[in-house]
Every structure is written in C-alpha cells, then in structure tokens.
C-alpha cells in the first residue's frame, strides 16, 4: 500500500455531471470514502472550503513544484478556442485560461485522470461545429492529440487515464482513483484509448436485460417497447465499451433497462452521432454492427433467429410490459 495521495480536481468545459455522479460514492459520503482509501483532497471546486486567493496560491505552489501533487483529475473538455487562445474558458479569479493551467499543472502530477468523455476526448462541447475547439487531455474526438500531446506521460510514467462516459458510472471514477492511490494500475490496465480495462473490456450490451430479444432479433419499434433496440431505436451498446449492464446505476438502472438506446457515451466522437434514437440502415441492415461480427454472419444469423423466435419473445418485444408470460402453453414452441 502506498502512502496517502493528494488529489486536485479541476473543472474545465464541463457540465459538472461527473462530480454529481461521484458524490454518490461511499456509504458514509464521498469525503469519508476518499479518506478511507488514502486520498487527501487538496481542492475540489464543488466541495472544498477554500475559495478565491487561497486556492490560487495553492495552485501556484503546485505549479512551481513547491508542493507535490499525486493525482490531477480534470473534468470537462479543454477549450482551445478562439484561435488557440483558450479564452472561452478562463479560470475565474486568474487572468489565465484553463488551457494554460492544465498545461502547467499536468506535468507536475504523479498521475493525470481525465474524468468523463469531455476531458478524455472532447465530449459534447466538441460536437459539430465544435465552436470552442474542445479537446480531451490526450485525445480528441477525431483521434490522438489532445492538449497534452500524444507523448505526454505523468511523473509516474502513465499516460492520461481516461475514465470516459457521459456521465461515467460513479464506480468507474472512484475505483480508478482508488487503484491509482494504491499504485495498482499500470499501462497494461488501460485499453488503446487509455480507458481502464476493468470496464472497457466489456461491451455495454453484455448483460442487458434485452439480450434474449437480441438473440432472436425481436426488436422494439417504439420508445418503451421491451424488445432489443439495436435494429430500430439506435442502440449502440454492441459497439460501445462499458460494463453498464453488469453493474447498475443509481441503485438498479441502466440506459437500456430505462427503455432507451445506448448512445455510446464512452466512445470518442459519440457527440456527432446523427439521429441518436434511430438506427441507420442500408437495405434494411443496420450500418453499425456488433464490433467483431462479420456482416454476412450477422445477416444470416438474424434471418435464422428471426424464423425461430418464440411467440413470447416476439410479442413481448413490441409491448411495454410482458404480455406473454414464460411457461409451457399455447405460446411455446
């Protein structure tokens, strides 16, 4: 177990939603949770007492190297506009932009964590026409790059850890911070986009309560239908990473359980999907197929499984509640 770690959390072009999510952590509250896992929160814009000059003095000490920093969390996209000046996001109370602060502080940190898809890849602010030139720390919506550059490594040697998601699951954030503090996360624990593999090695589709409908291609047609939402309602969960359906959100929900499509919020560029709630198709076949499935197979299997769909599954797919219960009877084959 490493010694206690210091954590500084800053918000750039964010909605504050990642903070709202992480505040759900801990049976005794987030502060107690951080304390219990050995993290000392130097400053967080939403929860700390220090304000104004006290904060700026502290940040300047970190910048100058007078005060060490173990973990820097950034929530929100780094806004580079207009014209590379970063002036769409000045850090209040200073005449400096957040772009400038981030570039100054990140090299001082033991580990840099991008919290949420904005800090990781640019997120919604980077949505077309990207009015503020929004970027992630080490990636952009369009590929590597980001404001710290592809080669950036924090003092620990780690690239930026991208806890993507919009908003990310509270557990993704907290478990990552805890692993960092405990010195248990290395480059091999991240995927190619810097996302922790403990959630990124899964697809959001895994464990969806609609998986039986998926297998039989029994599809929802309207919002609140119970069938699989991939064929008509835009569900991207077969292409989006996340263990969303294996752990629950807010005490028991998930996007697809809530009755609406996965919009692939963990992926770079998700903000530029056009028609989030409809499935683009060519000749009746969805354009976005499961990541590792050849198209011909998908088409053949879909045809086969559609022909074998039990009545229960077919009827329930187009209703907002089960209309045919499971069991042997007229409804079963």
């Amino acid at each position, binding site marked *: 177990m490493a010694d206690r770690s210091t954590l500084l959390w800053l918000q750039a072009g964010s909605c504050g939603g990642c903070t709202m999510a992480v505040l759900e952590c801990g049976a005794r509250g987030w502060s107690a949770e951080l304390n219990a896992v050995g993290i000392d929160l130097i400053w967080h814009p939403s929860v700390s007492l220090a304000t104004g000059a006290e904060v700026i003095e502290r940040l300047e000490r970190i910048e100058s190297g007078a005060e060490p920093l173990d973990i820097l969390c950034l929530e929100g996209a780094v806004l580079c506009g207009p014209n590379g000046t970063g002036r769409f996001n000045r850090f209040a109370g200073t005449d400096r932009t957040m772009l400038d602060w981030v570039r100054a502080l990140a090299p001082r940190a033991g580990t840099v964590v991008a919290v949420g898809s904005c800090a990781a890849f640019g997120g919604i602010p980077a949505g077309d026409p990207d*009015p503020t030139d929004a970027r992630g720390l080490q990636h952009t919506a369009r590929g590597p790059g980001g404001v710290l550059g592809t080669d950036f490594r924090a003092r620990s040697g780690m690239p930026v850890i991208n806890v993507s998601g919009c908003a990310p699951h509270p557990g993704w954030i907290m478990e990552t911070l805890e692993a960092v503090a405990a010195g248990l996360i290395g480059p091999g624990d991240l995927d190619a986009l810097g996302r922790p593999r403990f959630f990124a090695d899964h697809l959001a589709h895994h464990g969806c309560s609609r998986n039986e409908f998926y297998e039989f291609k029994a599809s929802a047609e*309207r919002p609140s239908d119970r069938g699989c939402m991939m064929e008509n309602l835009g569900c991207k969960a077969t292409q989006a990473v996340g263990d969303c359906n294996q752990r629950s959100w807010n005490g028991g929900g998930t996007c697809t359980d809530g009755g609406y499509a996965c*919009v692939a919020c963990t992926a770079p560029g998700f903000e530029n999907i056009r028609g989030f709630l409809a499935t683009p198709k060519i000749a009746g076949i969805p354009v976005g197929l499961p990541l590792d499935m050849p198209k011909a197979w998908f088409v053949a299997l879909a045809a086969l499984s559609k022909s074998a769909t039990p009545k229960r599954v077919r009827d329930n797919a187009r209703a907002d509640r089960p209309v045919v219960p499971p069991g042997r009877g007229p409804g079963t084959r």
Partner: protein
Amino acid sequence: MTRTIVGPFNRVEGDLEVRLETGDGVVREARVTTPLYRGFEQILVGRAPADALVIAPRICGICSVSQSMAAVAALRALSGTVAAPNGVLAANIAHAAENIADHLTHFVVFFMPDFARPDYAGAAWHPAAAERFAAETGAASAEILPVRARLLHVMGLIAGKWPHSLAFQPGGTTRALDLGARMRLAGIWRDFRAAFERIVLGVPVEDFLAIETAGALAAYAEAGRADLPHFLRIAAATGCDRLGRGPGPLMSFGAYHGEDGALFAGGLTEPSDGWRPLDPDRIAEDLSHAWMQDGPALHPARGETRPDVDRPEGYSFAKAPRLDGRPVEVGAVARQAVDGQPLIRALLERDGATTVTTRILARMVETARLVLAVEGWVRALDLREAFCAPEAVRYGDGAGEGLVEAARGALGHWIAVRGERIQRYQIVAPTTWNFSPRDAAGRPGPLEQALVGTPVGDQPGRAVAVQHVVRSFDPCMVCTAH
C-alpha cells in the same frame, strides 16, 4: 473605492468571478462574470430535432432532468404530441427527486460550510456550526450524501441512469413501471421523508408546513434541534435576514405541469405585492455587456448566439435576459412566492425583498411540499396504462417553446425547425436571469443588485458575507452561458 476580483468561487456549480467596487466597508457596485462558454446553442443547430434530447441535458450535470424537461416541452409544442399521463407523473417524480437532491446538496454541501469558517471563531454558535457543517469533514454532509444517493435511486427506476437520461420523451417516459417498481419507488420515498424530517426539519413535514408566520417560524427556530432550525438561529445571529436583498420582481414559469395545471403556479410577483400573470413574449436577451457580437435585444425565439471575446464592453459570456426590460429574480423563493406559499409570502412582505435567509428557507419549504406531492403522484400512477404514448412523434417545420422550472428557477428552451433540422435553439437558464450582467440601460442583474451594501470589512476578497449572498442563489454557472 477599491476594486477586488473574487474567484474562483467554489461550492457553486461551475466557474464564477465577481468584481467588487467597495468603499467604507461595503460593496458599492458588483459585476458578475461567467468565464466559461461551451456553445450548446451552436452545437444543436443543424441536428435532427430529437437529438436535442441527447445534447440539451448535457448542458448541466446538476439539473439534467430539468434540461430534458425543457427540451421535451419544446419538442412537444413543436410536434403537437400528447404525453401519456403516467409518463407525465413519472417525469414529475424524477424531476422532483433531482430538484430535492439539488436543494439538499446546496444547503449542506455548498452553503452551510461558510458558517464553519474561522472568520466566525469567537461567536457563541461557531463551535457547533463547525462540528456540524465544516466542508468535507462536517457531520451533516456525511449524513446527507448517503440520503442523496438513496434518493437518486428514483432515477435508476424511472430514468435508467442519472445524470443525462434519455427516458424523458415527448410521448412520456420510456420505462413502464410494474408493481414491484412502484413499491420500490414508494420505499425510496418513505426513506427520504424519514431522513428529511429527522436531519433537516426536526418535525414532520405536515407540522413544518403549518408554520405560516414569522412568529411561528421564530418559535420553531428556537426549539428545533435539526439542521434547518440550526441555520435559522445562525442566520438571525449573523444578520442573514437583512443580507443580499433582492428587490424583485420574482418570476416563475410554473413547476410540475400535469393534467390539472402546475403544482406550483407560474406568474410574476413583487416581494411586497400580489400575483400578476406572466407574458413570456415580453422576454428579451440584451447583449450589450456580454462577450457576444453586438445586436438588438431579441426574444429567444429570434435570438442569436455569436460569441466575441474581444467585445470591449463585455464582461461575461452570459447574456442579460430581461422581462419587459427589467431584471427579475428566479428560484425556489420566486416559485414559492408566486405560488402564494404563506410563510414565504409573510417573510417577503415583512422584509420588502428576498434575502439570504428566505432563499435558503424557500428551498426547504419547497422540499417539504414536494415530499407530499410525490406521495400523491406515486399513488396516482395507473399501472395498467402506458407510460409513453404509442404514436410516432413527427417534427415538421415550425417552432416550439418549453418553459419549466429547474431547481434554480425559470428555464426556457426555444426551438425552430426547418427541413427536419434544428434551425435555431436558444436557452435561457435560471442563473442567466439571476447572474446576468448589466443591460444597455446600465441596469445591473439581480445578484449585482443584491450584493450592493454587503459588508466586506477591510478585506473584500475574503469577506464571508459576499460568499453567503452569492451562494444563497445556488448559482449554476455551467447553465448560465451554456
């Protein structure tokens, strides 16, 4: 006169900077700066109308349901969709849960920690306040955060996830609750009521709502052992009931719309005067002191958003919304005053203005009223009926207006569609009203007015009274300029 810049302001949502001109130990003039612009109105243009349901909530992680509800209302108006009654009830329940989570987080995590500051060391009440309300380590936040997390289980049931859910659609909500879910919902609500009565009110909700006069409130404050009476005693000792005066008018779009109208009526009121109807067509956004390209003050249905960081007179990314040319205050205190809630009305009439105390108190009054309303909504769900209207939603060319109330006040979305694409999308958020900059006539926004006269001692940058006034509005800067 001395000039001071205060910022970063923490324990508010997003980035805020306040410039103070002070003299003789008080604030003479204030200018409020929103230093962050992300461009949601520009990002929404050109997309399919329904995509607003994904983009708009992401304006704000603290009130994403409110943003969803405004987008839904605008899309409903545009398409003529009629929502399933169950969907309206379920959305109202989720919206109430979000607003209550906001009110509680604001009270305990954002606002009260200032009373634990060393500035107050020596006051008789300070040791108890510090023990209870210190930022991060205080006993109150350790109690409230788990209550908040449990309350947000409402979102897991109704909305799938929070923040940023797609469950809120023009036709209703996308998950039909079954009997088990309804029972779970009732259980979450029972837990919430019990925690709220024990930790915050110290008395049953009904007894608290029976307090209708300043005298009865004083008696409650004296006797009570919970966090709200605790606050009221500190507020009396520190003069919060004379601090941060907002002269009005107060505005509400009306909250929790249902088949029988709104739970909290919309309209306009002065602190010392009665209700008037509100004409939303009289809203216009002034650009004269915003970092926006120059242009006339326009109604949001015709408004433009073209940022210009070099604008010489500009000092904020917020535009300055005005109603009939006047700045107005919005928020829980406005909502309760407009709805005629007796206690809030009595205090406003006594003080002739909103104050730090009434803004804080109104949030807890509202929470108490919502506890009862949600109990009724859960009972009213008809589990045999749909939660989402089965008809497909069609968006033709046209325009729609969505006027709702977020926790922090009046929230409006205005959409115009042409050729199946969003042609214009304008948003006026609660904090845009409250923290607006000056307008072309030089009239300051509500916070700018409320700060005038605030005592700052000889260190304006560290004056705790300024912190109380600013936080009493529960600003959300990420919504402000969006």
